[in-house]
Protein backbone atom coordinates (compact mmCIF):
# COMPACT_ATOMS: atom_id res chain seq x y z
CA UNK A 1 0.00 0.00 0.00
CA UNK A 2 1.34 3.43 -0.89
CA UNK A 3 0.36 6.89 0.33
CA UNK A 4 -1.66 7.37 -2.83
CA UNK A 5 -3.93 4.47 -1.81
CA UNK A 6 -5.21 6.41 1.18
CA UNK A 7 -8.32 8.22 0.04
CA UNK A 8 -8.40 11.97 0.65
CA UNK A 9 -11.85 13.46 1.03
CA UNK A 10 -11.86 17.10 0.04
CA UNK A 11 -14.84 18.95 1.40
CA UNK A 12 -16.48 22.07 0.07
CA UNK A 13 -14.08 22.45 -2.85
CA UNK A 14 -16.63 24.53 -4.73
CA UNK A 15 -17.59 27.26 -2.30
CA UNK A 16 -14.66 27.59 0.11
CA UNK A 17 -11.83 29.99 -0.58
CA UNK A 18 -8.89 31.56 1.19
CA UNK A 19 -7.92 33.57 -1.87
CA UNK A 20 -4.79 31.76 -3.09
CA UNK A 21 -6.47 30.30 -6.18
CA UNK A 22 -7.93 33.53 -7.54
CA UNK A 23 -4.44 35.07 -7.39
CA UNK A 24 -3.01 32.12 -9.31
CA UNK A 25 -5.74 32.25 -11.96
CA UNK A 26 -5.03 35.95 -12.48
CA UNK A 27 -1.35 35.14 -13.02
CA UNK A 28 -2.21 32.41 -15.54
CA UNK A 29 -4.44 34.87 -17.42
CA UNK A 30 -1.64 37.44 -17.56
CA UNK A 31 0.85 34.85 -18.86
CA UNK A 32 -1.62 33.60 -21.49
CA UNK A 33 -2.27 37.15 -22.64
CA UNK A 34 1.48 37.68 -22.99
CA UNK A 35 1.92 34.39 -24.86
CA UNK A 36 -0.82 35.31 -27.35
CA UNK A 37 0.75 38.73 -27.92
CA UNK A 38 4.47 37.81 -28.02
CA UNK A 39 4.74 34.01 -28.31
CA UNK A 40 6.71 33.89 -25.07
CA UNK A 41 5.89 30.64 -23.29
CA UNK A 42 5.94 30.35 -19.50
CA UNK A 43 5.80 27.82 -16.72
CA UNK A 44 4.54 27.91 -13.14
CA UNK A 45 5.88 25.41 -10.62
CA UNK A 46 2.85 24.46 -8.54
CA UNK A 47 5.07 22.80 -5.95
CA UNK A 48 6.57 26.18 -5.10
CA UNK A 49 3.19 27.69 -4.22
CA UNK A 50 1.31 27.53 -0.93
CA UNK A 51 -1.71 25.34 -1.51
CA UNK A 52 -3.74 23.02 0.68
CA UNK A 53 -5.33 19.84 -0.72
CA UNK A 54 -8.61 21.69 -0.98
CA UNK A 55 -7.19 24.55 -3.01
CA UNK A 56 -5.40 22.12 -5.30
CA UNK A 57 -8.79 20.59 -6.01
CA UNK A 58 -10.25 24.05 -6.58
CA UNK A 59 -7.54 24.76 -9.15
CA UNK A 60 -8.39 21.50 -10.93
CA UNK A 61 -12.05 22.48 -11.02
CA UNK A 62 -11.27 26.00 -12.19
CA UNK A 63 -8.99 24.95 -15.06
CA UNK A 64 -10.97 21.85 -16.04
CA UNK A 65 -10.06 19.60 -18.91
CA UNK A 66 -9.95 20.52 -22.60
CA UNK A 67 -9.46 18.54 -25.78
CA UNK A 68 -6.05 16.94 -25.23
CA UNK A 69 -4.86 14.44 -22.64
CA UNK A 70 -1.56 12.63 -23.12
CA UNK A 71 0.38 10.14 -21.05
CA UNK A 72 4.12 9.62 -20.96
CA UNK A 73 5.98 6.65 -19.61
CA UNK A 74 9.47 7.98 -18.89
CA UNK A 75 11.05 6.85 -15.61
CA UNK A 76 7.57 6.91 -14.14
CA UNK A 77 4.32 8.18 -15.66
CA UNK A 78 3.47 11.76 -16.62
CA UNK A 79 0.07 13.29 -17.34
CA UNK A 80 -0.23 16.14 -19.78
CA UNK A 81 -3.62 17.79 -20.00
CA UNK A 82 -4.72 20.78 -21.97
CA UNK A 83 -7.09 22.65 -19.69
CA UNK A 84 -10.34 24.09 -20.92
CA UNK A 85 -8.34 27.20 -21.75
CA UNK A 86 -6.35 26.38 -24.91
CA UNK A 87 -2.66 27.11 -24.47
CA UNK A 88 -2.84 26.44 -20.72
CA UNK A 89 -1.45 22.96 -19.99
CA UNK A 90 -1.24 21.05 -16.75
CA UNK A 91 1.83 18.81 -16.70
CA UNK A 92 2.26 16.38 -13.80
CA UNK A 93 5.34 14.19 -13.60
CA UNK A 94 5.36 11.16 -11.28
CA UNK A 95 8.19 8.87 -10.24
CA UNK A 96 7.89 5.12 -10.48
CA UNK A 97 6.43 5.02 -6.97
CA UNK A 98 3.61 7.35 -7.95
CA UNK A 99 4.82 10.44 -6.06
CA UNK A 100 4.54 13.76 -7.85
CA UNK A 101 8.06 14.99 -8.67
CA UNK A 102 7.09 18.03 -10.72
CA UNK A 103 3.74 19.72 -11.17
CA UNK A 104 3.61 22.52 -13.68
CA UNK A 105 1.24 24.84 -15.46
CA UNK A 106 2.71 25.46 -18.90
CA UNK A 107 1.59 28.24 -21.18
CA UNK A 108 2.57 27.09 -24.67
CA UNK A 109 1.32 25.69 -27.98
CA UNK A 110 2.48 22.30 -26.82
CA UNK A 111 4.52 21.33 -23.74
CA UNK A 112 8.17 20.78 -24.63
CA UNK A 113 8.27 17.32 -23.05
CA UNK A 114 5.81 15.99 -25.67
CA UNK A 115 8.00 16.70 -28.69
CA UNK A 116 10.41 14.01 -29.90
CA UNK A 117 14.04 14.66 -29.00
CA UNK A 118 16.77 14.63 -31.71
CA UNK A 119 18.95 12.19 -29.73
CA UNK A 120 16.04 9.78 -29.26
CA UNK A 121 15.16 10.05 -32.97
CA UNK A 122 18.76 9.19 -33.92
CA UNK A 123 18.73 6.15 -31.64
CA UNK A 124 15.30 5.15 -32.94
CA UNK A 125 16.43 5.43 -36.56
CA UNK A 126 19.38 3.15 -35.85
CA UNK A 127 17.03 0.60 -34.30
CA UNK A 128 14.65 0.81 -37.24
CA UNK A 129 17.46 0.34 -39.76
CA UNK A 130 18.77 -2.64 -37.80
CA UNK A 131 15.29 -4.14 -37.82
CA UNK A 132 15.01 -3.72 -41.63
CA UNK A 133 18.37 -5.35 -42.19
CA UNK A 134 17.46 -8.41 -40.18
Amino acid sequence: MTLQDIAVKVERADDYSVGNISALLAEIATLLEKFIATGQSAEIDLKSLPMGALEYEQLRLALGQGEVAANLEAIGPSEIIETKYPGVWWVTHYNVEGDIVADLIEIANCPAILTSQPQDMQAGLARLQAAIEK
Partner: protein
Amino acid sequence: MKDHDTLEHRLTQQGISRRSFLKFCTAMASLMALPPGTAPAIAAALAQAKRPSVIWLSFQECTGCTESLTRSHSPTLESLIFDMISLDYHHTLQAASGFAAEKSREDAMKDFYGKYLLLVDGSIPTKDNGIYSTIAGRTNLDLLQEAAKGAAAIVAVGSCAAFGGLPMAKPNPTGAAPVSDLIKDKPIINISGCPPIPSVITGVLAHYLTFGELPALDELGRPKAFYGETIHDRCYRRPFYDQGKFAKTFDDEGARNGWCLYELGCKGPTTHNACATTKWNGGAGFPIEAGHGCLGCSEPNFWDAGSFYTPLAAPTSNIGAIAGAAALAGAAAAVALSAADRAKKKSLQQTHEKLTVKDISN
Protein backbone atom coordinates in the same frame (compact mmCIF):
# COMPACT_ATOMS: atom_id res chain seq x y z
CA MET B 1 37.56 2.20 -6.84
CA LYS B 2 34.18 3.20 -8.25
CA ASP B 3 33.97 4.81 -11.66
CA HIS B 4 33.43 8.55 -11.65
CA ASP B 5 32.42 9.16 -15.29
CA THR B 6 29.85 11.61 -16.49
CA LEU B 7 26.18 11.26 -15.79
CA GLU B 8 25.21 11.42 -19.46
CA HIS B 9 27.36 8.38 -20.17
CA ARG B 10 25.85 6.47 -17.26
CA LEU B 11 22.28 7.30 -18.24
CA THR B 12 22.83 6.31 -21.87
CA GLN B 13 24.27 3.02 -20.67
CA GLN B 14 21.13 2.44 -18.64
CA GLY B 15 19.00 3.05 -21.76
CA ILE B 16 17.42 6.23 -20.41
CA SER B 17 15.98 8.38 -23.21
CA ARG B 18 16.65 12.06 -23.69
CA ARG B 19 12.98 12.77 -22.93
CA SER B 20 13.30 10.91 -19.62
CA PHE B 21 16.43 12.90 -18.89
CA LEU B 22 14.56 16.16 -19.59
CA LYS B 23 11.78 15.05 -17.27
CA PHE B 24 14.40 14.29 -14.65
CA CYS B 25 15.86 17.79 -15.10
CA THR B 26 12.40 19.34 -14.74
CA ALA B 27 12.00 17.44 -11.46
CA MET B 28 15.48 18.60 -10.42
CA ALA B 29 14.60 22.24 -11.10
CA SER B 30 11.49 21.83 -8.93
CA LEU B 31 13.54 20.02 -6.27
CA MET B 32 16.16 22.76 -6.19
CA ALA B 33 13.43 25.41 -6.05
CA LEU B 34 14.69 26.92 -9.32
CA PRO B 35 12.35 28.36 -11.97
CA PRO B 36 10.98 25.60 -14.27
CA GLY B 37 12.55 27.34 -17.29
CA THR B 38 16.02 26.39 -16.01
CA ALA B 39 15.55 22.67 -16.85
CA PRO B 40 17.49 22.90 -20.17
CA ALA B 41 20.43 24.60 -18.41
CA ILE B 42 20.38 21.89 -15.76
CA ALA B 43 20.34 19.25 -18.50
CA ALA B 44 23.42 20.77 -20.13
CA ALA B 45 25.33 21.02 -16.83
CA LEU B 46 24.30 17.59 -15.57
CA ALA B 47 25.28 15.86 -18.78
CA GLN B 48 28.86 16.72 -17.92
CA ALA B 49 28.61 16.17 -14.14
CA LYS B 50 31.04 13.75 -12.48
CA ARG B 51 30.22 11.56 -9.49
CA PRO B 52 31.72 13.06 -6.37
CA SER B 53 32.74 10.87 -3.45
CA VAL B 54 30.66 11.37 -0.32
CA ILE B 55 31.60 10.39 3.23
CA TRP B 56 28.79 10.50 5.75
CA LEU B 57 29.62 10.58 9.46
CA SER B 58 26.92 10.11 12.09
CA PHE B 59 27.57 11.46 15.58
CA GLN B 60 25.18 12.21 18.50
CA GLU B 61 21.94 11.68 16.61
CA CYS B 62 18.76 9.62 16.51
CA THR B 63 19.14 8.36 12.89
CA GLY B 64 16.03 10.38 11.97
CA CYS B 65 18.04 12.30 9.37
CA THR B 66 19.19 9.11 7.69
CA GLU B 67 15.63 7.78 7.89
CA SER B 68 14.50 10.96 6.19
CA LEU B 69 17.15 10.63 3.50
CA THR B 70 16.32 7.02 2.73
CA ARG B 71 12.76 8.10 2.03
CA SER B 72 14.18 9.66 -1.09
CA HIS B 73 16.45 6.72 -1.76
CA SER B 74 13.91 4.16 -2.95
CA PRO B 75 13.97 3.32 -6.69
CA THR B 76 12.60 6.65 -7.85
CA LEU B 77 13.48 9.52 -10.06
CA GLU B 78 15.31 11.16 -7.16
CA SER B 79 17.32 8.02 -6.65
CA LEU B 80 19.10 8.91 -9.86
CA ILE B 81 20.78 11.58 -7.76
CA PHE B 82 22.17 8.84 -5.60
CA ASP B 83 23.41 7.05 -8.67
CA MET B 84 25.26 10.25 -9.25
CA ILE B 85 27.16 10.31 -5.99
CA SER B 86 29.46 7.66 -4.70
CA LEU B 87 28.47 7.15 -1.07
CA ASP B 88 31.76 5.69 0.08
CA TYR B 89 31.08 5.57 3.81
CA HIS B 90 27.85 5.67 5.80
CA HIS B 91 27.97 3.40 8.80
CA THR B 92 24.20 2.81 8.93
CA LEU B 93 23.59 2.22 5.23
CA GLN B 94 26.76 0.45 4.13
CA ALA B 95 27.03 -3.33 4.04
CA ALA B 96 30.59 -3.41 5.39
CA SER B 97 31.20 -3.29 9.12
CA GLY B 98 34.08 -3.21 11.58
CA PHE B 99 37.58 -2.83 10.17
CA ALA B 100 36.36 -3.11 6.54
CA ALA B 101 34.01 -0.15 7.05
CA GLU B 102 36.67 2.01 8.65
CA LYS B 103 39.04 1.07 5.85
CA SER B 104 36.57 2.23 3.18
CA ARG B 105 36.38 5.60 4.96
CA GLU B 106 40.16 5.88 5.10
CA ASP B 107 40.51 4.85 1.43
CA ALA B 108 37.94 7.39 0.26
CA MET B 109 39.63 10.13 2.31
CA LYS B 110 42.98 9.28 0.75
CA ASP B 111 41.83 8.70 -2.85
CA PHE B 112 39.68 11.82 -3.06
CA TYR B 113 41.62 14.11 -0.72
CA GLY B 114 40.49 17.70 -1.16
CA LYS B 115 37.55 16.62 -3.35
CA TYR B 116 35.06 14.63 -1.30
CA LEU B 117 31.90 16.01 0.25
CA LEU B 118 31.65 15.36 3.96
CA LEU B 119 28.09 14.91 5.24
CA VAL B 120 27.61 14.98 9.00
CA ASP B 121 24.51 14.27 11.03
CA GLY B 122 24.40 14.60 14.80
CA SER B 123 26.15 17.03 17.11
CA ILE B 124 29.61 16.50 18.52
CA PRO B 125 30.19 16.07 22.27
CA THR B 126 33.17 18.14 23.41
CA LYS B 127 33.03 17.84 27.21
CA ASP B 128 35.67 15.64 28.88
CA ASN B 129 37.60 15.40 25.61
CA GLY B 130 34.55 14.20 23.73
CA ILE B 131 34.37 10.75 25.33
CA TYR B 132 30.56 10.68 25.34
CA SER B 133 30.38 9.36 21.78
CA THR B 134 32.99 7.23 20.08
CA ILE B 135 33.13 5.07 16.96
CA ALA B 136 35.71 2.29 16.70
CA GLY B 137 37.31 3.66 19.85
CA ARG B 138 37.77 7.20 18.48
CA THR B 139 35.84 10.25 19.59
CA ASN B 140 33.43 11.99 17.21
CA LEU B 141 35.50 15.13 17.59
CA ASP B 142 38.65 13.35 16.43
CA LEU B 143 36.86 11.71 13.46
CA LEU B 144 35.30 15.01 12.41
CA GLN B 145 38.57 16.93 12.56
CA GLU B 146 40.35 14.25 10.56
CA ALA B 147 37.66 13.93 7.87
CA ALA B 148 37.20 17.71 7.61
CA LYS B 149 40.84 18.20 6.58
CA GLY B 150 40.44 16.63 3.12
CA ALA B 151 36.84 17.69 2.48
CA ALA B 152 35.94 20.09 -0.33
CA ALA B 153 32.94 21.16 1.73
CA ILE B 154 30.94 19.96 4.70
CA VAL B 155 27.18 19.49 4.73
CA ALA B 156 25.71 19.52 8.24
CA VAL B 157 22.52 17.48 7.88
CA GLY B 158 19.83 18.12 10.48
CA SER B 159 19.44 20.57 13.34
CA CYS B 160 21.89 18.63 15.58
CA ALA B 161 24.82 18.93 13.15
CA ALA B 162 23.79 22.42 12.08
CA PHE B 163 22.89 24.01 15.42
CA GLY B 164 23.45 21.43 18.18
CA GLY B 165 19.83 20.25 18.30
CA LEU B 166 18.47 18.07 21.08
CA PRO B 167 21.83 16.95 22.48
CA MET B 168 22.77 20.61 23.00
CA ALA B 169 19.46 21.46 24.74
CA LYS B 170 19.89 22.64 28.30
CA PRO B 171 21.63 21.43 30.41
CA ASN B 172 23.71 19.98 27.53
CA PRO B 173 25.37 17.22 29.60
CA THR B 174 27.83 16.16 26.89
CA GLY B 175 28.98 19.64 25.87
CA ALA B 176 27.43 19.02 22.44
CA ALA B 177 28.42 21.46 19.70
CA PRO B 178 27.43 21.94 16.04
CA VAL B 179 29.95 21.37 13.22
CA SER B 180 30.34 25.10 12.58
CA ASP B 181 31.61 25.69 16.14
CA LEU B 182 34.43 23.20 15.62
CA ILE B 183 35.49 23.55 11.99
CA LYS B 184 36.37 27.03 10.84
CA ASP B 185 38.40 26.59 7.67
CA LYS B 186 35.94 24.80 5.34
CA PRO B 187 32.74 25.86 3.60
CA ILE B 188 29.84 24.50 5.69
CA ILE B 189 26.27 24.26 4.54
CA ASN B 190 23.60 23.75 7.19
CA ILE B 191 20.55 21.71 6.21
CA SER B 192 18.58 22.16 9.40
CA GLY B 193 15.34 20.47 10.43
CA CYS B 194 14.48 17.72 12.85
CA PRO B 195 14.70 15.91 10.52
CA PRO B 196 15.33 17.94 7.36
CA ILE B 197 12.97 17.41 4.43
CA PRO B 198 14.45 14.54 2.36
CA SER B 199 14.16 16.38 -0.92
CA VAL B 200 15.98 19.36 0.59
CA ILE B 201 18.93 17.06 1.34
CA THR B 202 18.88 15.69 -2.20
CA GLY B 203 18.20 19.16 -3.60
CA VAL B 204 21.39 20.51 -2.06
CA LEU B 205 23.37 17.52 -3.34
CA ALA B 206 21.79 18.03 -6.76
CA HIS B 207 22.80 21.68 -6.73
CA TYR B 208 26.39 20.77 -5.91
CA LEU B 209 26.42 18.15 -8.66
CA THR B 210 24.84 20.37 -11.25
CA PHE B 211 26.73 23.57 -10.69
CA GLY B 212 29.85 22.26 -8.96
CA GLU B 213 29.46 24.74 -6.13
CA LEU B 214 27.40 25.22 -3.00
CA PRO B 215 24.13 27.15 -3.30
CA ALA B 216 23.69 30.66 -1.88
CA LEU B 217 23.39 30.56 1.92
CA ASP B 218 21.61 32.67 4.52
CA GLU B 219 23.33 34.14 7.58
CA LEU B 220 22.93 30.80 9.41
CA GLY B 221 24.60 28.88 6.57
CA ARG B 222 21.34 27.43 5.22
CA PRO B 223 20.60 27.29 1.47
CA LYS B 224 18.41 30.27 0.66
CA ALA B 225 16.43 28.35 -1.95
CA PHE B 226 14.86 26.27 0.84
CA TYR B 227 15.23 28.44 3.93
CA GLY B 228 14.83 31.88 2.38
CA GLU B 229 11.26 32.23 3.55
CA THR B 230 9.42 31.34 6.71
CA ILE B 231 6.75 28.66 7.01
CA HIS B 232 4.40 31.56 7.72
CA ASP B 233 5.38 33.35 4.45
CA ARG B 234 4.22 30.34 2.42
CA CYS B 235 1.50 28.94 4.68
CA TYR B 236 -1.81 28.27 2.97
CA ARG B 237 -3.55 29.38 6.22
CA ARG B 238 -1.91 32.78 5.97
CA PRO B 239 -5.03 34.57 4.65
CA PHE B 240 -6.74 33.63 7.95
CA TYR B 241 -3.87 35.06 9.94
CA ASP B 242 -4.18 38.27 7.95
CA GLN B 243 -7.91 38.35 8.67
CA GLY B 244 -7.31 37.74 12.41
CA LYS B 245 -9.10 34.36 12.35
CA PHE B 246 -7.43 32.03 14.86
CA ALA B 247 -8.24 28.55 16.19
CA LYS B 248 -8.26 28.77 20.01
CA THR B 249 -8.25 25.06 20.78
CA PHE B 250 -7.53 21.99 18.68
CA ASP B 251 -11.19 21.07 18.40
CA ASP B 252 -13.09 24.35 18.18
CA GLU B 253 -14.97 25.77 15.23
CA GLY B 254 -11.87 27.70 14.10
CA ALA B 255 -9.78 24.52 14.06
CA ARG B 256 -12.46 22.76 12.02
CA ASN B 257 -12.54 25.67 9.59
CA GLY B 258 -8.80 25.47 9.09
CA TRP B 259 -8.02 28.85 10.64
CA CYS B 260 -4.55 30.01 11.60
CA LEU B 261 -2.80 28.06 14.41
CA TYR B 262 -0.82 31.00 15.79
CA GLU B 263 -2.62 31.05 19.12
CA LEU B 264 -2.06 27.31 19.49
CA GLY B 265 1.68 27.91 19.42
CA CYS B 266 2.55 27.77 15.73
CA LYS B 267 6.19 28.84 15.30
CA GLY B 268 5.75 29.35 11.54
CA PRO B 269 6.41 33.12 11.71
CA THR B 270 9.96 32.66 13.05
CA THR B 271 10.84 29.40 11.27
CA HIS B 272 12.67 29.26 7.97
CA ASN B 273 12.02 26.03 6.10
CA ALA B 274 10.38 24.70 2.93
CA CYS B 275 7.67 22.50 4.51
CA ALA B 276 4.78 24.69 3.33
CA THR B 277 5.63 24.17 -0.33
CA THR B 278 7.94 21.15 -0.61
CA LYS B 279 5.88 19.22 1.95
CA TRP B 280 6.47 15.81 3.49
CA ASN B 281 5.84 12.14 2.67
CA GLY B 282 6.20 12.45 -1.07
CA GLY B 283 4.28 15.73 -1.14
CA ALA B 284 1.30 14.42 0.87
CA GLY B 285 1.21 17.40 3.24
CA PHE B 286 2.92 19.15 6.13
CA PRO B 287 2.09 19.48 9.83
CA ILE B 288 -0.08 22.59 9.53
CA GLU B 289 -2.25 20.78 6.98
CA ALA B 290 -2.77 18.11 9.63
CA GLY B 291 -3.95 20.80 12.06
CA HIS B 292 -0.80 21.15 14.19
CA GLY B 293 1.37 24.24 14.36
CA CYS B 294 4.99 24.36 13.29
CA LEU B 295 7.44 23.49 16.11
CA GLY B 296 10.25 25.59 14.69
CA CYS B 297 12.50 22.56 14.21
CA SER B 298 14.84 24.15 11.67
CA GLU B 299 15.86 27.08 13.90
CA PRO B 300 18.73 27.16 16.42
CA ASN B 301 17.83 26.15 20.00
CA PHE B 302 14.25 25.23 19.16
CA TRP B 303 14.15 22.71 22.00
CA ASP B 304 14.78 25.50 24.48
CA ALA B 305 12.42 28.00 22.90
CA GLY B 306 9.53 27.34 25.28
CA SER B 307 6.36 25.31 24.92
CA PHE B 308 5.32 24.13 21.49
CA TYR B 309 1.80 25.22 22.46
CA THR B 310 2.39 28.74 23.74
CA PRO B 311 1.82 31.46 21.15
CA LEU B 312 4.99 33.28 20.11
CA ALA B 313 3.76 36.68 21.22
CA ALA B 314 1.93 35.50 24.38
CA PRO B 315 1.61 36.29 27.17
CA THR B 316 3.29 39.67 26.77
CA SER B 317 1.04 40.94 24.02
CA ASN B 318 -2.45 40.45 22.70
CA ILE B 319 -1.91 38.69 19.41
CA GLY B 320 -5.49 39.06 18.21
CA ALA B 321 -5.27 42.83 18.52
CA ILE B 322 -1.79 43.06 17.00
CA ALA B 323 -2.58 40.77 14.08
CA GLY B 324 -5.82 42.65 13.44
CA ALA B 325 -3.86 45.88 13.41
CA ALA B 326 -1.27 44.28 11.16
CA ALA B 327 -3.95 43.41 8.63
CA LEU B 328 -5.15 47.01 8.65
CA ALA B 329 -1.86 48.86 8.88
CA GLY B 330 0.10 46.44 6.71
CA ALA B 331 3.82 45.93 6.80
CA ALA B 332 4.82 48.20 9.72
CA ALA B 333 2.61 46.46 12.25
CA ALA B 334 3.57 43.05 10.86
CA VAL B 335 7.23 43.94 11.41
CA ALA B 336 6.45 44.99 14.98
CA LEU B 337 4.71 41.67 15.51
CA SER B 338 7.59 39.62 14.21
CA ALA B 339 9.99 41.65 16.39
CA ALA B 340 7.77 40.79 19.38
CA ASP B 341 7.91 37.13 18.28
CA ARG B 342 11.68 37.15 18.11
CA ALA B 343 12.09 38.86 21.49
CA LYS B 344 9.71 36.38 23.09
CA LYS B 345 11.55 33.44 21.59
CA LYS B 346 14.87 34.77 22.83
CA SER B 347 13.65 35.29 26.37
CA LEU B 348 12.15 31.81 26.41
CA GLN B 349 15.45 30.35 25.26
CA GLN B 350 17.24 32.19 28.06
CA THR B 351 14.84 31.13 30.79
CA HIS B 352 14.34 27.63 29.35
CA GLU B 353 10.60 27.45 29.98
CA LYS B 354 9.34 23.91 30.17
CA LEU B 355 6.27 22.38 28.59
CA THR B 356 3.57 21.70 31.14
CA VAL B 357 0.43 19.59 31.03
CA LYS B 358 -1.54 22.82 31.10
CA ASP B 359 0.06 23.87 27.85
CA ILE B 360 -1.33 20.92 25.95
CA SER B 361 -4.66 20.67 27.69
CA ASN B 362 -5.86 24.23 27.26
